């Protein structure tokens, strides 16, 4: 038996998420899929598991071309997927979760399901109390429950998408044992990750995807250096950094503790000077967003001190942060920044500091025309937010930043933008440095981090893993650090 992926194409609007992906995985292998954020791994896995259908190309299992138009088709064909957040129904018992989705007669036979659950889970070496509520299980146990269910349903291929996020070290070891065990029994295990160490530990073979294409395939072991180089591509950056500003700290975090979801950050210290740009690097979900949200006032530190320009904002509300001169540009442009169905003019009215009760639409349209011109937004004053392209949405968001800002918090400010738009965005942002604005910007783009930051903070697994002056590091080192390894 082998799993063959043949020339898969999938695009979303202008973005080619999968651009002709082909590779083959043999029976009984533990195969790593590596790639940075946005490389196209998740899209490919969603195609394999029936969540998306490919624009073209085939998935071939054991010589059969599969028709994967829904997750049910994929499971019936023997492909099961374990999501990063295991899809478990929390208010239901372990037994009901197990029995759910089983093909069979209408009547639910709980006794039969119970004995099947016991049989399969003991084969896998798991132990469950069938009557417990799934909500009381740890993430690791929920994974085990999902694995049990997929094996019972006859999965021959199991896909694990970032399975080590949010589980304990012991559970990780146990999970790895399980994965090896599954592979020994002849299953194909696809392990999707951007953590180099885990792939080195676990996998027999590896495929690296970059920008929707397969760029590297090999049997393990492979030098980590080679993997990093293939994941990120060669990063050449001409660094022409000015002197790092060392003025009074605009933002000061002392011994801050942050808790949100599965991320716990402890003992975080950070000072950002007026006019300084600090880049936040790391895999998605490593703690960058939590830090940005805390600085914005959307998440209150459980302990420590957060000061802006000498004013204590540790316990202040989000609106107090705004009033103190903090401006946050979240990653979701249409979800967290703009409002669908509302025009450019209306957005600019919302952003303006004019609070008169009646809106002078004539004047508003005129000033919108000026901003459109000024920020080269491709759109009319009456265009609504969702009609704009990503780059123009970002330009509109830039136009909506108030004139005087002390701290700008950016999350993936150039994600999905072409080179020209990205450069434009940064020109506008950097222009604010001269008035003393401090900038903290999270990005997955190493080139961008190196080019525009003064300092770079690398997060790994919810911790600050390393801090580097941008002038003294390079793409290769960042690649290592992001994967949780020091360069050797």
């Amino acid at each position: 038996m082998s799993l063959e992926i043949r020339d898969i194409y999938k695009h979303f609007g202008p973005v080619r998420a999968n651009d002709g992906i082909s590779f083959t995985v043999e029976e009984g292998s533990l195969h790593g899929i590596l790639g940075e954020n946005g490389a196209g791994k998740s899209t490919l896995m969603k195609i394999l598991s029936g969540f998306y259908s490919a624009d073209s190309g085939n998935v071939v299992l054991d010589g059969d071309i599969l028709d994967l138009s829904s997750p049910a088709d994929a499971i019936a064909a023997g492909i099961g997927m374990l999501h990063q957040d295991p899809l478990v129904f929390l208010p239901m018992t372990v037994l009901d979760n197990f029995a759910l989705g089983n093909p069979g007669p209408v009547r639910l036979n709980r006794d039969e399901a119970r004995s099947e659950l016991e049989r399969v889970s003991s084969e896998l070496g798991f132990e469950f109390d069938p009557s417990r509520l799934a909500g009381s299980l740890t993430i690791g146990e929920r994974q085990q429950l999902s694995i049990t269910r997929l094996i019972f349903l006859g999965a021959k291929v199991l896909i694990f998408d970032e399975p080590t996020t949010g589980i304990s070290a012991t559970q990780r070891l146990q999970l790895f044992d399980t994965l090896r065990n599954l592979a020994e029994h002849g299953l194909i295990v696809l392990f999707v990750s951007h953590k180099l160490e885990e792939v080195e530990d676990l996998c027999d073979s590896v495929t690296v995807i970059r920008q929707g294409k397969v760029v590297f395939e090999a049997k393990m072991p492979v030098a980590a250096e080679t993997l990093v180089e293939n994941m990120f591509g060669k990063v050449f950056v001409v660094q022409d950094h000015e002197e790092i500003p060392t003025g009074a700290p605009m933002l000061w975090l002392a011994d801050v503790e942050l808790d949100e979801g599965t991320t716990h950050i402890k003992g975080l210290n950070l000072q950002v000077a007026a006019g300084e740009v600090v880049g936040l690097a790391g895999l998605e979900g490593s703690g960058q967003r939590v830090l940005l949200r805390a600085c914005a006032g959307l998440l209150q530190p459980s302990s420590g001190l957060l000061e802006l320009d000498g004013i204590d904002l540790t316990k202040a509300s989000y609106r107090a942060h705004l009033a103190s001169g903090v401006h946050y540009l979240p990653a979701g442009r249409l979800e967290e920044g703009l409002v669908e169905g509302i025009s450019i003019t209306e957005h600019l009215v919302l952003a303006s500091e004019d609070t008169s009760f009646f809106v002078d639409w004539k004047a508003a349209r005129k000033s919108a025309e000026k901003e459109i011109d000024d920020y080269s937004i491709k759109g009319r004053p009456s265009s609504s937010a969702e009609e704009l392209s990503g780059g123009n949405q970002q330009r509109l968001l830039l136009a909506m930043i108030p004139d005087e800002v002390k701290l700008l918090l950016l999350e993936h400010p150039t994600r999905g933008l072409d080179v020209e738009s990205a450069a434009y965005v940064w020109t506008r942002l950097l222009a604010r440095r001269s008035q003393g604005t401090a900038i903290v910007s999270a990005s997955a783009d190493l080139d961008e981090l190196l080019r525009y930051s003064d300092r770079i903070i690398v997060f790994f697994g919810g911790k600050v893993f390393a801090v580097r002056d941008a002038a003294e590091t390079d793409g290769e080192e960042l690649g290592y650090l992001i994967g949780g390894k020091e360069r050797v």
Partner: protein
Amino acid sequence: MTQSLKVTSTLVAVGAALAVGVLLLLAVGAPPLEALWLLVVGSVGSASKLAITLLAWSPLILAAAGLVVTFAAGLWNIGVEGQLIMGAIAASWVARSVSGPVWVVVPLTIIAGALGGGAWALLAGVLKTHGHVHEIFGGLGLDFVAAGLATYLVIGPWKRAGVASTSGTDIFREEAWMPTFEAFGVSWPVIPVALGIASVVFVWLLLRGTLFGLKLKAVGSNTYSSYIRGIPTNRYLLGAFAIGGALAGVAGSVQATAFHHKLVPAISGGYGFLAILVVLLAGFSAVAIAPIAFFFVAISVGSTQLDLRLGVDSAFGGVLQGVIVLFVLLAGGWAAKHASNTLTPRKEP
């Protein structure tokens, strides 16, 4: 979605709904053309019929105008029915306890209605913003409480001297009746109609011309973005509830002081729920609710003739209204799907 596609689909939907209506009439053995003609004659066929239709139009348009505001804020104000009832109760309380000249008492009943409906809506709003009870459930619960309270008052504390009957309280003193204008031998409900028109103009201006309206729209379309933008979202949601409830409450005061001249258990006349259908059909537009509400009450008022002349139960009017709304919504959904299939590429979820 293109305008022409929208208009075509709506026309097709109304046509299909009428076809279903005709089939239903055939099924109960009534001559369809005569029945439809009776609907027209029974609602606008004479001055007196027109006056009745206009009196029914007023509370419906007031409640619908209020709903346009709550819908703009993204709220499903199912509690509108209860807000209307509470407005009627508050107006009845004033009508029963305040005596004075008509130009003092009637304005007071209107203000009381607005306060009663607004307060009841704010209750649903606070349940949503501070108790995390979805406004559909909170509103529905409060509808039942308000209806219960009206019945309790009618057969309890406010019962007619000597008899407790669900037929209503004592008739209000005439100084608490909304004055009418006599012409062509008919009493025209001038004040209710003026209130209805004013509510439409008010809501249209509020949503089109003011910063408040714009922020309300932003909160309704994307609460999280609005919050990030620094808009106090809860305050705007509560504001929308208060305005929507106040207008529904005025509708209730019209029902009490212009139509029944007393409090009855069924004081709302179902206009709250009917107003939801009107607003859905109008595509949430303040301007479009006026003619659509008129069309709806014309069917309601006209259908009483079906009972008298053809022996078809007057509930037929309600059936026809429901079918029209369902078909129009169906057509809207179909048109939106059609438009998204052809014009925009599928977005990554």
